[in-house]
């Protein structure tokens, strides 16, 4: 839940920064000034939101599995691992004997 919270906060902050940038752009156009660069606080907010989103997505998606097969087989019994369906026999004498 914590990592999802971080990701959501980052996305909201990013959306807010984008909206602020659009507002600033409109303000500059209406007051007929020359657009030079975005205000520093919008840039800082965008970068911090990006950092939060990065960390959040790494924590959310970065759940890796151990690739060694011994780690995967540790919790399985031999009956599961050594199961050979190709060698199963269904035609045997039991059908003649018990039917």
């Amino acid at each position, binding site marked *: 839940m914590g990592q999802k919270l971080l990701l959501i906060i980052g996305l909201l902050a990013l959306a807010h920064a984008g909206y602020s*940038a659009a507002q600033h752009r409109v303000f500059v156009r209406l007051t007929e000034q020359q657009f030079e660069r975005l205000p520093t606080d919008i840039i800082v907010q965008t970068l911090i939101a990006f950092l939060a989103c990065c960390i959040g997505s790494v924590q959310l998606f970065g759940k890796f599995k151990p*690739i060694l097969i011994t780690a995967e087989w540790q919790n399985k019994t031999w009956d599961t691992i050594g199961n050979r369906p190709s060698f199963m026999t269904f035609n045997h004498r039991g059908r003649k004997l018990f039917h």
Partner: protein
Amino acid sequence: MSTNNEMQIRHSATNSRSTTSSKSPSLSKVNNVRNVEPVLYSEAAVRFNENSLEQCRTSVSALSGCVAGILGLTSYKGFIFYAFSIFFLSFLIYLYIRNEHRKFFTSLKHIFINGFFNGLLTYVLFWTFLYGMVHVY
């Protein structure tokens, strides 16, 4: 059968020493018998890891495209920002699994180099979209 198909044999790095020609034939023959120790990897787990790495890359490239569009980066600066953000993501993942990256990936190349340009088109899509939304209209 399923477990057998998931199994994949790869050979670990062979510690074969270079045989010099000055040695006697019998010695070089002994050295030619390499000490190969097979390492078994679960292919399903390897594919799962690649998949989650790819998910990370795609989401972060979309996000960095948003950031580049909001900041109003143009031309080569945007591509530099893409390279920076993907490297930053790789570094974050490396920090996240720093001590046990051998447990999850066969080599560090998977984290840092493989699939570097996979998110580029996603990045350009979000970059142009957000740039148009914020700065043009």
